[in-house]
């Protein structure tokens, strides 16, 4: 694995030690759980993550790698081990298409699991559909990830997440939240798209919303905040990746806005470094949406994830929500593969089997997940919201169901397969 700075590892390890205290006692359970290593012919599964570049987006792939290692130590897929190949696409669509071709055409992977990349969904859509390979992503970010036939993320996506964040603020302060400003980077299929759900929702409640997009390369967070304030909002949603959010919060702190406006953000801000990075000023004043339940929930699957990471991951692998998503992606793939005849595992049978996943449950999800055979997949749209407090992110107990109007087709599909509430 790659060497990271030692103190960063120690910091994360220390933070996780508080949360994983009980997990050490638990065993890691993967797949058939035989306890015997798998020795048959390997099944090739790939994963594409974005490591080098503006941000390190690899926790999902690392979690999937850990799970597959655990699986291989526990009998594999009916005796066959999984050969998991994780590739870096460096936030570059050219490189993404190259590594996708490598995994799918050269290495003949039967599925891709644990993907986490800003550019993978857009660049490789054609290849995925042409080769009819399913991608059970850990994390999808751009709109493309949620509008493809062959791509099924276990996370909710920034648009759904943003909507939930704003809904939670409105529920916490009933009657007082009428005007929303959503700040997003000016990448059209990521930034602006991720805000339209929240704006559509608040307009449906009789309020008004404004989307402010900014150039990620620009150095002027104060002007963004001032522009937001000219709209006189009740809530500001900072719908940006965490690195870009910190200067925006710093500029808002400079203007002393924490007591004038409610601040919230989607799951892209859900990161253990985030509360410390924005500082004590924001204690108790910022809510962050979560796509999955909190790491310290103590429930069986959550503990299993932590146990798998501890035993088969490395200390520097982040234990964040994206890691949870990667674990879930690996788990659903493994359990689907276990149902197949081990001699007949090839791409078409795996694709068909994954498409027929209509109900996958875990205590990490707020509601059952599925893949289905629809034209697009956005199964995760419910989750709790957390509050920044005492340098940590404390989850609120209730699961919030996102009321984004764009999800209507997903809900119709869920009704047809019997998953509706």
């Amino acid at each position, binding site marked *: 694995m790659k060497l990271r700075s030692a103190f960063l590892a120690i910091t994360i390890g220390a933070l996780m030690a508080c949360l994983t205290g009980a997990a050490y006692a638990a065993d890691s359970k993967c797949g058939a759980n035989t306890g015997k290593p798998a020795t048959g012919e390997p099944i090739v599964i790939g994963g594409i993550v974005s490591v080098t570049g503006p941000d390190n987006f690899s926790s999902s792939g690392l979690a999937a790698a850990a799970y597959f290692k655990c699986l291989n130590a526990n009998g594999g897929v009916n005796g066959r081990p999984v050969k998991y190949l994780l590739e870096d696409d460096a936030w570059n669509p050219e490189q993404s298409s190259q590594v996708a071709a490598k995994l799918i*055409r050269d290495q003949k992977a039967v599925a891709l699991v644990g993907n986490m990349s800003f550019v993978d969904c*857009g660049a490789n859509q054609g290849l995925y559909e042409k080769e009819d390979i399913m991608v059970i992503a850990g994390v999808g970010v751009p709109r*493309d990830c949620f509008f493809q036939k062959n791509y099924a993320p276990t996370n909710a996506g920034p648009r759904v997440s943003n909507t939930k964040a704003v809904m939670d603020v409105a529920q916490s302060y009933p009657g007082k939240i009428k005007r929303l400003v959503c700040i997003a980077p000016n990448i059209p299929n990521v930034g602006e798209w991720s805000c339209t759900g929240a704006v559509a929702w608040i307009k449906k409640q009789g309020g008004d919303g404004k989307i402010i997009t900014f150039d990620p390369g620009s150095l002027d967070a104060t002007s963004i905040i001032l522009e937001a304030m000219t709209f006189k909002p009740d809530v500001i949603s900072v719908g940006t990746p965490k690195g870009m959010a910190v200067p925006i919060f710093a500029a808002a702190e400079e203007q002393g806005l924490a007591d004038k406006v409610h601040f919230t953000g989607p799951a892209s801000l859900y990161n253990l470094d985030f509360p410390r990075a924005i500082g004590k000023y924001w204690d108790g004043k910022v809510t962050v949406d979560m796509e999955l339940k909190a790491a310290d929930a103590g429930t069986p699957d959550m503990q299993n994830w932590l146990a798998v990471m501890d035993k088969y991951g490395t200390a520097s692998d982040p234990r964040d929500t994206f890691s949870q998503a990667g674990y879930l992606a690996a788990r659903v793939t493994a359990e689907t593969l276990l149902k197949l005849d081990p001699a007949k595992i090839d791409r078409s049978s795996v694709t068909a089997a994954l498409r027929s996943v209509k109900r996958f449950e875990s205590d990490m999800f707020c509601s059952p997940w599925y893949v289905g055979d629809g034209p697009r997949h956005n199964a995760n749209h419910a989750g709790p919201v957390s509050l920044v407090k005492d340098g940590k992110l404390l989850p609120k107990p209730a699961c919030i169901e996102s009321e984004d109007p764009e999800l209507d087709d997903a809900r119709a599909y869920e009704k047809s397969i019997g998953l509706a509430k």
Partner: protein
Amino acid sequence: MTDRSLEGVSLVASSRLPLREIAVGAGALAVIYLLPSFLSDYWLRVLISVAALVVASLSVSLLFAQLGMVSLAQFGLLGVGGWFALRISHGLGAPFELALVTGGAAAALVGLVVGLPALRMRGLYLAIITLMMAGAIQVLISAFGFPDGGTGILGKSTGARVMMARPFLAQSDPAYFRYAVVIAAFCYLLVLAHLRGRPGRAWAMIRRGEVCALAGGVHIVAYKVWAFALAGFLAGIAGGLLAGGVGQLDGSAFPASQSIMLFALTIVGGAYSWFGPIIAGLMLRAFPALLNEFHVDGNIATVVFGVGLLHALMTAPQGIARQLADAFWAARNFFKGNGRNAA
């Protein structure tokens, strides 16, 4: 820097059939035809990108070698060409070739706009102004975003992304690779035709001395503009090739820093040699791909790049192509014996 104004201009017309050139050309064609079957799909895609960047590097070396002009905006023009190619392909459903040429033409126009203020400048000031243009193009591309299938000039699709349609003859990766190499060869021939014709001689005179060129009746502004337009056209073609290769382009992939890298590696590869752009293309795309193949941390790749670039700038100002050529000639003379010792 030594005066190379007469390079590329043949002094004596020859009626002899260039057998050696034909043999080399035929050999190259055979290699190109057979190469894809030996390569993994990963390397095939890498080489498609290399082919596109060879054309981009050619555009930089054209301006630098022929007119001594440094353009740090060529990668931005690649983005402009790619943008127009995507828009024509998505919006009008036009065939790939038409989209490619339109992208080239659009980039040529923008290249003109970049070139006009730069006509009176030289050296560092020219470089800086083109860098500023690249910065402006970067902001425009980021703000507009790349076409992804939505309708209209700026439409963004609300559903799945539409990918760029590949040429009718070259749908698969191996076929597209051969297609890209053919296009790159066409671009080389286009530049060669210019060099051997009037523009080449005019550029040589301008490079030698503007006063002499003016006295000789050369319309300096027109020929400089022509050079910028041609360079822009080549960059646009490269952008279209890249768009067809991947199927889409990302707005964040055309920052001003990439234009500087393109220029730097063209110089390192050798701006005065026909082989230089090929080396530059390989360094820009094949070398990082090689490092990624061995799972070297991308940051280490950046460091290696920087060190290599620095070393090349310090030790080989004529570029690697020149070093290779020198080595080739030295080896040849060694094997020929002690007879003739030219080189």
